[in-house]
């Protein structure tokens, strides 16, 4: 354990004299201290904060009443993600990064345009050794929304991220005829048209995500996030998105990390609360 007070004094002494003018291009990163340390322990280092943004138009009339999938909206969504990822890769390439970690994904779907913004930290191996080869890595940097912690764990297991896998599907909410609705109003009945439409849309979004993972050269997708909900400007249209990080095995085989079991002593405790008199003790 280092002498923290001595380290602090050493740090303070480094500021006691003005720093000489430097032409160095300072590193910028949105990683936390923990993430920076973990990344360094895994032999990688941050280079620069990079971003990619794309705004893609959605043709007029797309959200009008209809049936089935709203394919133009899905296309616009996928195009926006693709363009934003390209811009992010281009920024990463400028600083000779081998990939971007901790990418924050912001998607905004509006009536006539879809905006996708990606922000993350470009990284490279500290010793320049990339399992994919330096040239290949710089030519096609990976894009990953995994945190630096998850990235280092993934590397340790013998896998590498290859890119963001994204899928989106927009559908019109199905409708019954007035007669059918009247007939079914007193019944406990599954609305099969709703079930089928929503089920199919969810599957379609995930299918597109898996397709994009394969296109990027991945073998699978980790940390999949799924969002769904009606459009605020068109409540009759429902959007589903699924995205995660496409990964591929770079080691000969999966490396089992063999985690150690721990029982933390700061675990939740049962405490007395007046309300607990009405039932079992409440955990907090």
């Amino acid at each position: 354990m280092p002498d923290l007070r001595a380290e602090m004094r050493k740090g303070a002494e480094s500021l006691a004299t003005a720093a000489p003018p430097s032409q160095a291009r300072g590193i910028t990163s949105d990683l936390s201290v923990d993430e920076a340390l973990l990344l360094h322990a895994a032999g990688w280092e941050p280079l620069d904060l990079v971003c990619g943004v794309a705004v893609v138009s959605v043709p007029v009339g797309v959200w009008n009443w209809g049936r089935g999938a709203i394919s133009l909206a899905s296309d616009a969504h996928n195009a926006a993600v693709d363009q934003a990822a390209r811009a992010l890769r281009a920024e990463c390439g400028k600083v000779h990064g081998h990939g971007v970690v901790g990418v924050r994904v912001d998607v905004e779907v509006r009536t006539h345009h879809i905006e996708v913004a990606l922000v993350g930290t470009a990284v490279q191996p500290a010793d320049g050794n990339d399992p994919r080869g330096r040239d290949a890595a710089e030519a096609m940097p990976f894009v990953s929304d995994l945190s630096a912690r998850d990235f280092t764990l993934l590397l340790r297991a013998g896998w590498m991220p290859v890119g963001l896998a994204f899928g989106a599907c927009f559908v019109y909410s199905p409708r019954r005829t007035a007669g059918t609705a009247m007939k079914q109003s007193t019944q406990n009945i599954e609305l099969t048209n709703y079930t089928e439409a929503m089920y199919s849309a969810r599957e379609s979004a995930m299918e597109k995500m898996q397709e994009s993972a394969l296109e990027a050269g991945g073998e699978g997708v980790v940390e999949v996030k799924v969002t769904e909900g009606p459009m605020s400007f068109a409540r009759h249209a429902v959007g589903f998105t699924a995205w995660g990080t496409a990964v591929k095995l770079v080691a000969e085989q999966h490396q089992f990390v063999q985690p150690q079991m721990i029982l933390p002593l700061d675990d939740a405790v049962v405490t007395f609360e007046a309300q607990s008199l009405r039932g079992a003790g409440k955990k907090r």
Partner: protein
Amino acid sequence: MTDLTGSVDPAAPPGPAAGDLPEAAVRRLQSDAFSSGLTVPDFAACLDLGLEPVALVQGFCVMQWGWYGPGSGYMRGMSPYAVASGSGGGYSETYRCPHGFVSAEHRTWGQNLEQPWVEAAWTQGYSSAYARMIEEATDMGAHGVIGVVDRVGTLADTGNTEFHFLGTAVRVDGGPPPAGGVPWSTYLAGQRLTKSIEAGFMPVAVVASLASVRVWAYCMTEYLMEGQMGMGWGGYASSGPQLVDQVSKAHMAARQLARKHVREQLVGDELHGATIDVATRELSAGDEVIDCTLRGNRVRRFKDFDPIPAPRPTVRLG
């Protein structure tokens, strides 16, 4: 609050300089009790690091944004080339209509333009509030300010912008005063600050910048942002989604400019724990203002980076 330079006389005794701060601040800072905005764990970690809390310090500034509408010289209708040349050499891109004359309302040109006057106003407000916080810390003989919290918002219903900084001034046990007597500062506190020091990164200052880009849409951008594919000819069935080049570039430029402005403040040091926030105000189809704020901790490496041992994966029971 006159001296905003942060410079002090090193020979002056610690304590607030009367007349330079609000009366309540002088009374508070003269009190025997120390104050701190740190949580109890952060407070404990701070003492462990040899940092002695001196006082809760703050800085404040309210700014009114100058008018830059009609008559200000920054309004649409001027020659785009004149505006570009008058913007102080900042980012600008001009877009020309591919159609020729269509009507008087037709947007024959468009422009993405960095707004240095907005950035200057923001920087003035931010820097003034920061300098006042540092002034309080300096007057108390502090070496640094930790756990800095900054807030930029609207003051009540006035429509003016307020900048507020809050932090805990500290002295380094046995440490020398910082260069020029100006305390260092960081958003970090507690164990995160401890880890940063242990890893060999000493905080220098909190840094932030705003980049403001105005988008004046030309006809194609206007049509695309309204969902009409080029002059409104052809139904949507015949033309698919298209990249809105002008707006996409403006968004990229705002983020890149914010990064550039922050990098100018780093002078070779590093920026850790950066956060980027973007606010967009839509004025009409394609016409918008994009404000991007980037802030983080400027840190200086004072020793070689010692890699931590590879962490052991654990599974938490319970």
